[in-house]
C-alpha cells in the first residue's frame, strides 16, 4: 500500500511539473540552438530517451549546416572580392554625397547636338508639304495618263478596232458585188488586195461559220483576260471594210 502511494505520488509530481509529457518542437529547437530554457525541460531531457535522441539529431543537423554553409561561403567569397565590394560601396556612398562624380558615360557621336525643336509653325510646314506632295502626285498621274496610248474605238462586239480598218471606208455602190480586202497570209494572197464577191456569194460567205474562223470566234467569245491584249492587236472579221458595189 505504501509502495503504491509512493508511485502514484511520483507520477502526479511528474505530471504537475510537466516532465511527463514530451518536449514540443518549440522547446526542442530552443534547446538545440542554445537558447535559455526552463529547468523542467532540461529535467525532462535527462529522463526521456526519445526527446534526448531528437535533440541529438537536431543538434547534429545544425552542426552540419553551419559547417558546410560556412565552408561554402569562404570558398566562394574570397578576400579580394570582399575588398572590391567594399571599394564599390565606398564609391557609391561618395557619389551620393557628391564628393565623387558618377562613372563617365560615353556619349554617342551626335548626342551633343540639340534636337530640332518642333513648334506650331513647323506643324504648318508638315501640312503644306503633305498637300504639295498630294498635288504633285495627282498631276503626275494625270500626265502619265495623258501620254498613254489613246483609247481605241470599241466595235459592236466590244473589241477595239484596228487603225487600218477604221480608216478604210465601207463602200456601197449597189452594183451587185462586194469588195473585201484580203488579209495577207504571206503566201498566195499579199496583204492590201481586194476581192470582189456577188451579193449571193457574200451572203453565203456570211452564212458560213467557217468564214469567221475558229480563232476569231474563240477570241471574241473568250472570257480569259490574258488573251485580251492579243485580241486587241489583231483585226476582227466584223471590223473588215466591206465595199458593196
Amino acid at each position, binding site marked *: 500500500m505504501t509502495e503504491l502511494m509512493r508511485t502514484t505520488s511520483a507520477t502526479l509530481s511528474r505530471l504537475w511539473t510537466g516532465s511527463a509529457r514530451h518536449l514540443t518542437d*518549440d522547446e526542442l529547437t530552443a534547446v538545440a540552438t542554445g*537558447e535559455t530554457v526552463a529547468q523542467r525541460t532540461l529535467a525532462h531531457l535527462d529522463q526521456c530517451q526519445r526527446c534526448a535522441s531528437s535533440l541529438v539529431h537536431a543538434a547534429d543537423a545544425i552542426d552540419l549546416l553551419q559547417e558546410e554553409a560556412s565552408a561554402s561561403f569562404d570558398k566562394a567569397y574570397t578576400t579580394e572580392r570582399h575588398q572590391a565590394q567594399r571599394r564599390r560601396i565606398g564609391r557609391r556612398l561618395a557619389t551620393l554625397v557628391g564628393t565623387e562624380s558618377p562613372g563617365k558615360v560615353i556619349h554617342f557621336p551626335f548626342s551633343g547636338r540639340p534636337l530640332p525643336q518642333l513648334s506650331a509653325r513647323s506643324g504648318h510646314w508638315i501640312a503644306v508639304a503633305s498637300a504639295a506632295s498630294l498635288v504633285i502626285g495627282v498631276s503626275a498621274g494625270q500626265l502619265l495618263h495623258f501620254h498613254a496610248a489613246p483609247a481605241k474605238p470599241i466595235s459592236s462586239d466590244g473589241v477595239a478596232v484596228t487603225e487600218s480598218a477604221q480608216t478604210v471606208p465601207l463602200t456601197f455602190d449597189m452594183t451587185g458585188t462586194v469588195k473585201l480586202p484580203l488579209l495577207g497570209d504571206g503566201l498566195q494572197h499579199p496583204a492590201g488586195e481586194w476581192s470582189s464577191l456577188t451579193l449571193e456569194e457574200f451572203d453565203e460567205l456570211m452564212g458560213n461559220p467557217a468564214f469567221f474562223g475558229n480563232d476569231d470566234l474563240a477570241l471574241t467569245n473568250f472570257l480569259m483576260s490574258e488573251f485580251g491584249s492579243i485580241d486587241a492587236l489583231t483585226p476582227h472579221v466584223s471590223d473588215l471594210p466591206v465595199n458593196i458595189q
Partner: protein
Amino acid sequence: MKTTATRLKEQGAEITRATDREPAIETKLAAEVKQLLASGQRVLAAERFEAIVDREQRRASRIAYHYLRDPAEVDEVVQDAFVKAFLHLPSFREDLFFELWFTRILVNACLDRLKARKRLARWLAPSDPREGVVAEGPPSLDPSPEDALLAKERRALVEVAIDQLPARQRTAVILSYLEGRPAREAGIIMGLNESTVRVHLFRAMRKLRGFLKRESWATRSRVGTAEREA
C-alpha cells in the same frame, strides 16, 4: 502601398518593442550618422557610415550568399542594401538596433531578387546541368582529391537542401542556425512571433534531415551499383 520609409519606421517600432538588450556599437554609429545628416554634414556622415559598412559587410555578404549562391548577385544586393540604409537613415530611430533593421532590409532585397530570378527563369530555356563542370578552375591542391570531392558533394547537398525550403523556413534557418541569431531576433527580422520562428526552424530541420538522408542513401546506392558494375 506603403513607402519604404514607412515600412522601415514600422519595423523599427517592432524592434524596439521586442528587444531588451543594450544597443550595439553599430546602432550608436547609426545614430551619429543620422545627426550628421540632419545637420547637413553629408560628407562626414558618409565617412562615419563607412565604419558601419566595415563592421557589417562580411555578415551581410554571408546572409546574402546563403540566399543567392551567386557572388556577383551578392555584391549587388549588399551594395544596394547599404545605400538604401544610408538613404533612409534619417527615418531610423536612435533607440533601435541598427543590425536588425539593416538585416531586414537585406533579407527583403534577397527575397525580391529570388522572386525576380524565378520570373526570369520562366522565360529562359534551362541550361545544361553539366555546363561549367569542366570550367571550375585549376585543380585543387588538397592532399586527397577524393576527400575534397566528397566534401564538395556534401556542401552542394546542404546548399540544395536549404534552397528547397519554403521562404520562411529558409530565412529562419539562415538567421538562426547559420548566423547564430536567437529566435527572438530572427522573429523581429522576419516580422514573426518568437515561437513561430522556432516552429519554422524545427520543421525546416526535419525536412533537411529527410532530404539529406534520402540523398545520401541515393548516393550510396549509386556508388554501390558502380562498384558492382566495375
